[in-house]
């Protein structure tokens, strides 16, 4: 056994594993260090520097996501120095893009005025679609950053709305690179990357084409990774801001992977689907069907009442009529031609409970083993 290695963060001592960064140790012990570019499972880039901390003896603040924890290291997660640095990073981000969430005009001295202004502006078309779910906005609140009066630079690149599923708003992009990491290191679809240089830097797909014309497969991993409103879902239905969204965790109904998803519901309609977070088997990832393929649930083409063929045409019927007809007909066929003249095809689409009932029905009621499903097709 080697000597136990410890690090001190905010005057508390913690043990750590080899390969852990300062950020890993802090987060594991519920010490808040903000992050923007950091993406679990991807190589730390240290691009945004919002996670800077003070390390005793170090000449400058260090990015905690990219600095390995070391024995006897003494760290301050939110010293005056750190706060000052974080505030200037946030201020710069707010002034370098289109962040019309009212935060720019936030006056720390007049809270009431600010609240009223937000209420008044809310619901307008211009307000950022991720209002209230934006990490940059959260941090601006937390660190009381005033960006009022700072010049706002115009975005060089127009919004991209030609794609199904995903809107790219470059004016809100803070170039943290999380989407690039999600695409290249998590999903490994290699569809997007940093393009151009310096002040022209942009996240580009292929040779700077629209996502739909690139290698993008619309898995939407980048949307979940985006900490701001630069990548948002092109909703068929706009979520309503003041209606409570009910989130229901369930299992995706497409392939056999069984991804854990969260259905976001308003007014009995699925308005959005996201992953259920860091749980197996998908650990937060989804594909295009699992994220964007649930329009069928509320389709007007859904069957809503039983149908019975009368004079060659399918016509609406009551449940009693339909159930009696099926029960009587099956009883008759069984009597006339025997149990094995009936077959039941159960389904790989329905639940275990329903499959169990279907085969029980075939065996216990119809008295046949003629029961199968589409496993082979």
């Amino acid at each position: 056994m080697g000597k136990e290695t410890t690090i001190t963060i905010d005057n508390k001592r913690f043990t750590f594993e080899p390969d852990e960064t300062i950020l890993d140790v802090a987060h594991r012990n519920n010490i808040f260090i903000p992050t923007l570019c950091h993406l679990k499972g991807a190589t730390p880039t240290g691009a945004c520097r919002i996670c800077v901390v003070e390390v005793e003896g170090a000449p400058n603040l260090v990015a905690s996501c990219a600095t390995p924890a070391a024995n006897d290291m003494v760290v301050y997660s939110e010293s005056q120095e750190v706060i000052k640095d974080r505030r200037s990073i946030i201020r710069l981000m707010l002034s370098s893009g289109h962040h019309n969430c009212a935060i720019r005009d936030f006056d720390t001295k007049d809270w009431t005025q600010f609240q009223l202004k937000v209420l008044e502006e809310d619901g307008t078309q211009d307000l950022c679609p991720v209002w209230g779910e934006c990490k940059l906005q959260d941090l601006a609140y937390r660190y009381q950053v005033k960006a009022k009066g700072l010049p706002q630079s115009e975005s060089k690149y127009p919004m991209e709305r030609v794609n199904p599923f995903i809107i790219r708003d470059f004016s809100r992009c803070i170039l943290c690179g999380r989407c690039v990491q999600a695409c290249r290191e998590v999903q490994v679809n290699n569809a997007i990357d940093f393009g151009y240089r310096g002040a022209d830097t942009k996240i580009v797909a292929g040779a700077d084409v629209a996502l739909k014309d690139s290698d993008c497969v619309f898995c939407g991993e980048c949307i979940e990774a985006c900490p701001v409103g630069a990548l948002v879902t092109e909703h068929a239905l706009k979520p309503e801001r003041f209606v409570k969204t009910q989130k229901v965790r369930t299992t995706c109904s497409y392939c056999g992977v069984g991804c854990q998803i969260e259905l976001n519901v308003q007014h009995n309609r699925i308005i959005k689907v996201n992953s259920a977070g860091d749980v197996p088997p998908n650990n937060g990832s989804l594909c295009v069907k699992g994220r964007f393929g649930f329009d069928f649930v509320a389709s007007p083409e859904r069957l809503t009442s039983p149908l019975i063929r009368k004079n060659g045409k399918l016509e609406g019927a009551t449940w009693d009529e339909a159930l009696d007809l099926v029960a009587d007909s099956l009883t008759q066929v069984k009597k006339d031609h025997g149990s094995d003249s009936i077959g039941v095809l159960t389904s790989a689409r329905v639940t275990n409970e329903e499959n169990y009932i279907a085969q029980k029905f075939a065996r216990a009621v119809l008295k046949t083993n003629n029961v199968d499903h589409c496993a082979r097709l």
Partner: protein
Amino acid sequence: MTNTIADIETAEVILVTGSNTTENHPVLSTFVKRAALRGTTLIVVDPRRIKLSHHAATWLRPELGTDIAWINGLMNVIIKENLFDKTFVENRCEGFEELKKTVETYTPDYVEAITGINATDIIETARTFAGAKNASILYCMGITQHTTGTDNVKSLANLSMLCGNLGIPGGGVNPLRGQNNVQGACDMGGLPNVLTAYQKVDDDAARAKFEKTWGVTDLPAKPGLTATDMIEQAGTGELKALYIVGENPLVSDPDLNHAEKAIGNLDLLVVQDIFLTETAKMADVVLPAFCFAEKEGTFSNTERRVQRVRKAVEAPGFAREDWRIICEIATRMGYPMSYPNSNAIFEEITKVTPSYAGITWDRIENEGLHWPCPTADHPGTPILHTQQFTRGKGMFHAIDHRPPAELPDKDYPFMLTTGRVLYHYHTGTMTMKSPGLNTMSPECFVEISSNDAQRLGFEDGTMVDVLSRRGKITAKLKISSKAVDGTLFIPFHFAKAAANRLTNAKVDPVAKIPEFKVCAITIRKAA
């Protein structure tokens, strides 16, 4: 899967065959691609130059329907060069001598002649696979949907056992199940020869147990008909009535023209579904059901993980839950079936299903459990066969190559293989309701290599008639780098140009799975 999805990333070598993983199991493919990115050796064996092959160290291209040959070829090299796991073979397996004798014929040159895979590639791949500490095999319908489907799977099992890759993390023989609950439908006895947990219908003790729980006598002991047999017997008039739950065989069955006639021949067709599918349109009675977002229950995924399904929205109109509809009919037929809710059904399942016996909805509230999970305190079984196989020792099966049921000839010079695309799912009843998915994949296409297109004088986008001995469809030609000369690919999603009008209904003698992946076709400019 013998192993778990997360386990794939811990393999030293991953062999993917007959699986277009990035399109059919996109999220699972991320595990494979991440592994390859971090240095795992990925070998893809597939007749199409699928996207996953761009992530692979090696892409081997076999002729359609020659899987036994290349797998035997790998084993030939592995045995000849003494690269196999002798301890595993001696302690855990039997039948090695017969296997050795059979694969002796499959020298790299002989295999090259059958499969078209370069002999040196066979040798290199064999060394790489056998040299790995642990190697995972992933396969899908490209392996199973053949008249030799069962033998193809057994061959992969032979290869895995030979290298001692079963029962260890990062190893295994891993079929990727294509439908959300195809694993569960099998586990629950939705098969003609077994009750739940694969208890055989001709096992008297098993039947006695079910008779007691269900309060019935005379459960049938004779194995029933498979789905493909049912269609056959509907055609001959032996099967009179068919009750179909949530399936659309009139797009998904092989040789559709024949299937349509057979189903039309039934005295009674009942279809329970969420949409008026092509199949429901032919029904005598259509019963509207709930979709997954409207009900409580469980699905079992490809890695045998039993997971919860939860209600998020109310179902439309007068639709009902599938199980409630069936229970109503059973009751009206004189066998009362009634449950307060689906959890009560699950509780009954655990009483008669040893592999699910220890699972409760409470236990899987946050994270699903892998069966077998025999008792309430059992943690589930992520990896199968760690100590022994189900039958005790693992049996090597000595198997010879057999060609597909239909091969190209003068009249039908091209090979056709079918499958799915990323943006659609099976017969499209769900995905084709999403405008975005339809934008990305609006219609059927015929994928062809640029060489073949040039030779025929066809341009990209040309409307072509595709003909087989069984039928004809018309679709747009799509020149693609995925296609290899001589082989065309058509997705089977689209009812308007249903690839299954062309496919061959010849089945594997054991599994009764149709040969969707090979048939002979010809193409001509559409009139």
